[in-house]
């Protein structure tokens, strides 16, 4: 037998022992899903531009599916049903769901994962997002998927599938009934929608009939909920309210020196997760700082500890530096530690002279 043949045979044999771990498949499926999300939002953006609703347009491209970007920078860790039940965010999410739809109590948790967190050490590293999928045992296979922001605890995304009988899927219903179903879902999950205006349109998708429903606050053009209805599925994304969407205009010069904007700390403070943690807009934060307060003091008034600040800011900085590269837990904690002194310097710093009136 020649060397070549041996190599070929051995490679093929070797290949047969290689099984693609299910975690990879899950992750790719998730990425595909996010890709679709983004694509859909881009479509709406075009439509809206034509409609000339400029304010809302600024919102859409960046706010789409706020947490993970298309190419996931953080890894997703699978969770067991038990872990979900003990996880702070997971528990709260389930409780919300159960009180909204009591029948879901009998549903089975068929899939759950944490994005960017580690369920084993959830006290140390908070997940950015917790996702839970529940499915009815038997029956029509009713399914509900929830994506919860790990920091604010807000449910950012709800997908309801197969709640209508197969013979008469959701999309076959008259428009008014579709809207009623969507209203009902939002009402149950997020509370009254009376004060919202809404617009419904059909997307130009020749293969699949799809509706988009946009809910905006009365008198304002800020998009609050965006809903896609397709097949037997309702897909609700929360844009407005908390968490603060990522469309924030970058603020410069959080601190000032001798009355002039001092930009040294901007890259540390222009951090959406920080704003979400403090529940503050960047402009408000800037105003607070210009009064001569430090970030730590601002945080203290919001019951946020110094350590929480450090954790959030350091994490963002490290993520930025890594550009999506994956390193081990140990390396990550080393890097987080390394950046801590800089973070502390920034958050304890005060504007040198208060802004002159």
């Amino acid at each position, binding site marked *: 037998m020649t060397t070549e043949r041996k190599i070929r045979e051995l490679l093929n044999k070797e290949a047969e022992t*290689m099984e693609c771990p299910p975690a990879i498949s899950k992750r790719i499926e998730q*990425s595909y899903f996010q890709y679709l999300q983004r694509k859909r939002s881009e479509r709406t953006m075009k439509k809206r531009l034509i409609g000339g609703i400029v304010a809302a347009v600024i919102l859409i491209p960046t706010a789409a599916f706020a947490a993970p970007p298309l190419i996931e920078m953080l890894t997703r860790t699978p969770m067991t049903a038990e872990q979900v039940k003990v996880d702070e965010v997971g528990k709260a999410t389930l409780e919300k769901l159960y009180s909204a739809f009591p029948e879901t109590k009998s549903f089975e948790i068929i899939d759950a994962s944490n994005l960017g967190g580690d369920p084993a050490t959830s006290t140390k590293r908070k997940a950015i997002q917790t996702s839970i999928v529940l499915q009815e045992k038997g029956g029509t296979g009713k399914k509900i998927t929830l994506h919860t922001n790990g920091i604010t605890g807000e449910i950012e995304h709800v997908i309801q599938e197969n709640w209508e009988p197969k013979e008469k899927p959701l999309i076959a219903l008259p428009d008014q009934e579709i809207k009623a179903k969507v209203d009902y879902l939002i009402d149950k999950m997020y509370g009254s929608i009376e004060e919202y205006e809404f617009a419904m349109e059909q997307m130009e998708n020749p293969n699949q009939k799809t509706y988009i429903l946009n809910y905006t606050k009365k008198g304002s053009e800020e998009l609050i909920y965006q809903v896609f209805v397709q097949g037997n599925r309702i897909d609700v994304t929360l844009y407005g309210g908390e968490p603060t969407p990522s469309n924030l205009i970058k603020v410069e010069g959080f601190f000032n020196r001798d009355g002039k904007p001092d930009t040294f700390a901007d890259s540390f403070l222009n951090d959406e997760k920080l704003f979400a943690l403090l529940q503050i807009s960047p402009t408000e934060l800037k105003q607070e700082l210009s009064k001569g307060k430090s970030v730590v003091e601002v945080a203290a008034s919001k019951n946020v500890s110094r350590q929480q600040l450090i954790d959030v800011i350091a994490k963002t900085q490290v993520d930025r530096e890594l550009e999506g590269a994956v390193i081990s837990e140990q390396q990550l904690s080393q890097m987080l530690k390394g950046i801590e002194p800089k973070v502390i310097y920034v958050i304890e710093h005060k504007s040198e002279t208060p802004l002159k009136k």
Partner: protein
Amino acid sequence: MQSEYMYQLLLKMKDGDQQAFHTIYDATYQDIYRTVSFLVDHQQDREDVMNEIYMQMWTSLANYDTNRPFHFWLHGLVIRQVQRFRVKSWRRFRIFERIRAFSREESHWDKPGVLTDGTNQMIAKAIQKLTDKQRVVIILRFFHDYALEEIATLLDIPLGTVKSRYHAGLQALRKNLWNLPPERMEKDNDY
């Protein structure tokens, strides 16, 4: 699978047809995973590369030349993503030189438990010892049965370069695996 059929599926998938996505995924993932596993050592890295390959699949569909077989296009994606990943990891290496050096010790052809066969383990190790450039050629040649000309097109390098990497790779394998004296090149084509 028929290339034209796959292309139609890809178009559907791009439009948001999840069924099409699953069909494509199921038809391709084993092959891609195995190829990536041969080329990338670390498990976590493989995962990232896999993810990026699929991402690339639905973002760069426009570049698909329908006259070429689907698998050829697919392997092109695989190769480019693996190379891109290497460039990236090299940059990372400069920044986190120390950390990286540390984690390098961990990297292995990691499928403990499965590799009970001594010979298999030997080939795995020997192939791992090849340089990245040689390894790609060897895998494409022996795992995917591409002709050297096709490999040249896939890697976008001259045929002569493919040949020299191929022969150098083979020599190294022979040396490592069977401790055979280097053979004459003319014999290499009898298999």
